[in-house]
């Protein structure tokens, strides 16, 4: 079984990190929440608009230009074409892709595609933002920009689900963490507690660097 009998409740405005080994079911769970996959059994209930950044370039039509994809993505999230056109300049500016507006998405590098996805998804201020390792391909300066924008979201009522293998990123941005193993939730709780248990399990010798403190 890929996902095995998961019961989970996430409240509005919660920033939740999801950790676990490759193949533990993190991305699959996010796809179930996003409606990309349908569960075999059980129910998934979601309240509000979701902006999922699950796979690099997912949701983009690579043949269309950057600007057309911005409009398309926004329209799929329920915004009007006119509104998205007015937002496009800010999105391009944040993604640092002003000069690429009329280039097809297939011409962008993986880092550029990730920047574009993040810029659109966070500009339209969804109710739920899903980030699945998409920031790992960005450069340092863009990661800093993303962190700043995530901090802005922190104040808002936006629910964020963040999958990352970077414990630093999870610690900085989440106050609750889900640890997944073999399609099940192994542990759920406060960020530092879950990460400590996780690292103890995967790295019992303590070879990894010391953990950053949770700044909440």
């Amino acid at each position, binding site marked *: *079984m*890929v*996902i*095995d*009998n*998961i*019961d*989970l*409740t*996430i*409240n*509005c*405005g*919660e920033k939740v990190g999801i950790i676990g080994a490759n193949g533990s079911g993190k991305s*699959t*769970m996010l796809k*179930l*929440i996003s409606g990309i*996959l349908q*569960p*075999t*059994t*059980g*129910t*998934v*209930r*979601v*309240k*509000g608009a979701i902006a999922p950044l699950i796979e690099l370039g997912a949701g983009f039509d690579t043949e269309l230009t950057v600007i057309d994809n911005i409009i398309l993505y926004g329209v799929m999230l329920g915004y009007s074409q006119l509104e998205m056109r007015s937002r496009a300049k800010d999105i391009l500016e944040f993604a640092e892709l002003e000069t690429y507006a009329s280039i097809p998405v297939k011409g962008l590098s993986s880092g550029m595609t990730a920047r574009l996805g993040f810029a659109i998804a966070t500009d339209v201020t969804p*109710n*739920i933002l899903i980030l699945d390792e998409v920031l790992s391909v960005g450069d340092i300066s863009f990661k800093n920009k993303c962190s700043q924008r995530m901090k802005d979201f922190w104040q808002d009522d936006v*629910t964020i*689900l963040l999958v990352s293998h970077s414990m630093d990123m999870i610690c900085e941005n989440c106050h609750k963490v889900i640890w997944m193993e073999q*399609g099940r939730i192994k542990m759920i709780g406060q960020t530092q507690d879950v990460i400590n248990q996780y690292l103890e399990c995967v790295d019992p010798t303590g070879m990894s660097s010391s953990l950053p403190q949770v700044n909440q």
Partner: protein
Amino acid sequence: MIQESIRLDGVSLWRRTQEEFSYDLKKTIFSLFNGQYRQPAKKW
């Protein structure tokens, strides 16, 4: 009052894709032909 944003109740997924299903089916049929079929382990 705290509002729920996401709720999963007893959610299970057996296979991600149709391809995965086809692969499992073919594997089962071949193992039957070769006399190597083994029942899946029971879940407790």
